[in-house]
């Protein structure tokens, strides 16, 4: 009987550990960040245009904009392809072909991000340099292309699941009314799966905004608000990776505050995702 109790306690402790972990992460990061941000000033930190760590000028606005640009472009490129592929897989794909395509998509999601970064470095960056001429090629465009590829598996798999949970009768009803299969899917199924598809987009945004290692290798990493697709860009994630190695004192604390800003972005994204999921029930 005592053994039962001990194990029950052990099980409960293990289950509680993830609560503890989230708590620890929040405390370690937020505790540090609040002090730092109040020292610099919230507005100067978030909306400051200049980043000169040596002179203790810390404005991360260019990085916020950089993250938003790169993510938005990646989503704009990845979502149409991803959702259309999901539609194809759910309704038009011959079974045999599916047996090849599904594993391929899962493997696309398993490729480590440094490999994506390396691929971007040797293929996409020179390509961009050629197209624009006279630029290094490390750019918003290169970063977005790589990120668009990286978010594809998430978007395809989640959208496909959303489309497949809809009752077949929607599709059959549309067909019975004389619609072609394509029209039936696009005008009856896709609108009905809207919230599931949106959820896949939000997950994709989360993945794109949090990605560091692939972006760092292809984005150029200049601190600036970019004006064209071939300009270099630095994101919230890459700013941390680039400078954490040698940062000290206040500079280091600022990078931690930078991570917290990123964390807050992710939390907002997660909350909107679970709100969407909640809606469906």
């Amino acid at each position, binding site marked *: 009987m005592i053994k039962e109790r001990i194990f*029950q306690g052990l099980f409960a402790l293990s289950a509680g550990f993830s609560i503890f972990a989230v708590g*620890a992460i929040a405390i370690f990061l937020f505790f540090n960040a609040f002090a730092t941000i109040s020292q610099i000033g919230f507005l100067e930190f978030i909306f400051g245009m200049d980043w000169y760590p040596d002179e203790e000028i810390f404005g991360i606005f260019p990085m916020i904009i950089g993250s938003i640009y790169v993510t938005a472009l990646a989503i704009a490129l990845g979502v149409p392809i991803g959702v259309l592929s999901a539609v*194809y897989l759910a309704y038009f794909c011959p079974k045999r072909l599916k047996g090849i395509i599904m594993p391929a998509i899962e493997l696309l999601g398993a*490729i480590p*991000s440094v490999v994506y970064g390396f691929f971007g470095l040797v293929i996409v960056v020179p390509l961009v340099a050629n197209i624009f001429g006279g630029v290094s090629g490390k750019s918003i465009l290169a970063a977005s292309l790589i990120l668009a*590829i990286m978010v*594809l598996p998430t978007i395809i798999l989640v959208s496909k699941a959303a489309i497949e949970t809809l009752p077949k009768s929607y599709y059959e009803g549309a067909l019975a009314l004389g619609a072609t299969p394509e029209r039936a899917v696009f005008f009856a199924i896709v609108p009905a799966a809207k919230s599931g598809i949106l959820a896949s987009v939000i997950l994709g945004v989360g993945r794109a905004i949090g990605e560091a290692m692939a972006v760092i290798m292809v984005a150029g990493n200049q601190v600036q608000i970019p004006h064209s697709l071939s300009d270099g860009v630095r994101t919230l994630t890459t700013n941390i990776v680039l400078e954490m190695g040698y940062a000290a004192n206040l500079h280091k604390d600022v990078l931690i505050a930078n991570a917290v800003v990123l964390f807050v972005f992710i939390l907002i994204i*997660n909350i909107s995702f679970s709100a969407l999921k909640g809606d469906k029930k």
Partner: protein
Amino acid sequence: MSRDYLSIFLSFLLKFSIFSVLFVFFGITLFIFIKGIIYISPSLFEWEYNSTNVSLMPALINTINMVIFSLAIAMPLGIFGAIYLNEYSKKDSKILNLIRVTSDTLVGIPSIVYGLFGYLAFVIYFGFKTSFIAGVLTLSIMILPLILRSSEEALKSVPIGYKEASLALGASKLRTIFAIILPSATAGILAGVILSIGRIVGESAALLYTSGSVAQIAGAMDSGRTLSVHMYAISSEGLHINEAYSTAMVLIVIVFFMNFISNFIAKKILKDR
């Protein structure tokens, strides 16, 4: 039925999309494989790393160690946690919901944020310095939700009859869990574990500032790079592009292999049912 132009156009769009996805996948993997095979050489697998051989062996051994030790921490926590959620907690209790929410949050946290947390908590606060153990602890937390969730699913899918029969025969609850429920859920738990191995092997951002990037076989308190960090290091230096191709290939082969096994196990469970 004659098809209108819109339908033909939509059909074209669908085929174009799936084709470009496949093109990207086969483009990347074939490119890395072909280049990787061309440049693979025995010097890549020497025991010691130096600037001329660019050996990936120390990094590979670190990766294997990292997998073993991270799993040793995360597996008991994840599986025991899942047992609690399935067998002990009341349905829709507040704790259950809180654990769901927190493990969802853990899944969504970007790996660089894990890296900074690991740095602050293990490297600085607990004084482990930049070391293998700091990396292991960070990754354990990172894969915990993956193992917790997949174990939970696996336990849930064990037919309730097994449990009832065991209890009816007079076995204690604990005995039922360890002798009946866990063994029947092994395959499902394993699929999640193997998936998290893939995650550990591919991870780099969380390790840069926790276990560091020294190219040596690391003891518990030494800094040592895993294969992914090694890949990042040699490709960003840009001096050893050829070796980078081979390293990328080795990395992809490992990750793909892990995925295949976990899929194979998952499929087998579906068939058995």
